């Protein structure tokens, strides 16, 4: 942002510009995932699906779900602590979220390699890898935001009165987690 627009008076709104932007982006992202899910539903309607519902098959996805759900806790804790000006806990919380995210990505890579089918195996292969792949890309984007915020925390950029980027990255993280839950239910459970 240029110096001009940052310092200019805009008294008609008390919202944070970054949060408004994030909100609009997430709406747009939701339409994207919804249309992918519609494609999934439409194709599923007329095909046999290859996912086996046994517990053995679901082990890795279930562990991944648990890890991602767990990662929400330090993300939330990061915001709580910067509000209290607790820089060191903020740093540790962000790193913890980031590490759990990495474990999730590793788990997904393993899952992709052991799925037992490929993107060109019938329509199902395409749907599975497209949905999972785009979600994984979003997790990686979330990881990038977290890394940026970890560096900025080290540089002392945040305080109890200025922590909007931390909130934005954690909100994005919650969003990615919610999308995962929807995809997990749609692709593995139903």
């Amino acid at each position, binding site marked *: *942002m*240029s*110096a*001009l*627009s940052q*310092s*200019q*008076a*805009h*008294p*008609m*709104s008390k*919202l944070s*510009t970054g949060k*408004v*932007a994030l909100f*609009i*982006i997430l*709406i*747009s*992202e939701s*339409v*994207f995932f919804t*249309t*992918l899910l*519609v*494609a999934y539903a*439409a*194709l599923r309607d*007329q*095909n046999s699906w290859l996912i086996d519902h046994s517990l053995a098959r679901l082990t890795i996805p279930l562990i991944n779900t648990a890890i991602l759900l767990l990662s929400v806790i330090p993300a939330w804790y990061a915001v709580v602590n910067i509000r209290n000006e607790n820089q060191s806990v903020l740093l540790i919380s962000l790193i913890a979220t980031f590490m759990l995210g990495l474990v999730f990505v590793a788990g997904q890579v393993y899952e992709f390699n052991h799925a037992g089918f490929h*993107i*060109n195996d*019938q*329509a*199902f*292969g*395409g*749907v599975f*890898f*497209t949905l999972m792949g785009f979600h994984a890309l979003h997790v990686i984007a979330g990881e990038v935001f977290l890394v940026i915020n970890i560096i900025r925390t080290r540089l002392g950029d945040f305080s109890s009165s200025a922590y909007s980027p931390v909130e934005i990255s954690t909100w994005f993280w919650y969003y990615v987690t919610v999308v995962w839950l929807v995809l997990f239910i749609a692709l593995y459970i139903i």
Partner: protein
Amino acid sequence: MTVQAQTKSKLAKPDLSGFLSWVMTVDHKRIGIMYLLTAVVFFMFGGIEALLMRIQLMQPENKFLSPDVYNQIFTMHGTTMIFLAVMPLAAGFGNYFVPLMIGARDMAFPKLNALSYWTYLFAGAFMYSSFFLGGAPNDGWFSYAPLTEPLYSPTHGMDFWIMGILLLGFATTIGSINFIVTIIQLRAPGMTLTRMPAFVWAQFVTAFLAVFSLPSLTTAVMLLLLDRQLGAHFFNVAEGGSAILWQHLFWFFGHPEVYILILPAMGIVSEVIPVFSGKPLFGYTAVVFSMIAIGFLGFTVWAHHMFATGMPATTLLFFAGDTFLISAPTGALFVAWLGTIWKGKLRFSSPMLFSLGFVAMFLIGGLDGVHLAVVPVDWQLTDTYYVVAHLHYVLFGGAIFGIFSGIYYWFPKMTGRRLGEALGKWHFWFFFIGMNLVFMPMHVLGLEGMPRRIYTYGTGRGWEIWNFVETIGAMIIALGVLIFLINFFVSIRKAATSEADAWDGFTLEWKAASPPLVYNFAEIPSVRSRRPLWDEKHPELADWKMENK
């Protein structure tokens, strides 16, 4: 005010000049001008493609273009006009005038704004490079699968189209987010939502339409890309895919897209008509709600593009009825424009002529749309020239007339000079007569059963005379464009008069200098009514005083 300090900090930056200062700029006005100029160039490309098609169709059994080239030309004509001309023209005006009209100094994210423009320019150049790299896309602007599957479209043309559309979708999405955030966050004191100019409202609704609808196009082209490049089978029925899925995904974007193209033009017309009638916009609230309603309804009618695909009767009924419903808010807009003209002190300058042309031509396009919403009529007319007539009355008679109205209206603000009035009127009449000669006979051809997108036709069907007339009309439009270009280059060389308020306007952009300074307003204006500049010029007749009486 901290303006002086800010101006100084601006000056302290390395002083770039000439070409580089445009490349590096994040100023919304310069980005707006770059959008407009680039889009006008692409408009010429699309126009030349249209001329080539008209020359080919001038006579039956013509050999001017080969079928293969013809396919590439009509695909690129549609793609260019929609994605590379009309959308960026609207984005250019939005960039330039939304911050000025709401009393802001720039967009909310100036750098994203620059990114959005450069992505658009790259995507356009990328798509056009396909002509020299093995053939342009050739499956029509809506690229129906499975025709676009690798088996049936083996050249890389489709891949160019897919990548180009992905980039353009990205550019438009970040641009739209920027508009939404700017309008929510950066309004001047007193500029409440109910006082925002109609053009800003139109851009606001358009931005929401883009943000909600483009992801569906992204999904569609992404799936197609995976089909083509990684051997997935989304649209391959033999492997459990679905051919109709493309149409649903595409038109869920494609119909809102129609309103993305027309709403900014409606916004321009809703600014021009009041100023040139010397009256406030009649039924402002109805105009705003109509635009919002059109936006909402636009998302619920997509399958009316697919009546011929064999849908269940209830589905047909729903989408037909829903489509009729759009006539209601659209009709309200016509009432508002006519009510504004009614008993006004009319000035028939070029911007007003183009706006009035918009009202008349868009009406015809709208009525054609109602015909096509009648399912049995659509079954008869789908994929004929009747559809081509309809969409061009809406997009040429509508969007393009609105945009040229905007060009004539805002040119003095952007350059400090007026476009020549006499040439402007010639331009208008060439456009008006030319477009009716091209597109009115298409109704007849459509009713006579001439399919769209055929590269030639046999003799003795009664199509020759109308095709000939259409080609003459296309030449007249081309002459109109030429007149505009002459007007542009003559006017830009004249000495600047720099009059701030060229047309006795109502809205805040006319308060700034012509062209405006980098920071737009030395002091952020404060607003008490829908016509802040009128209030300032006529303190005793100010709108807010009248409201209180």
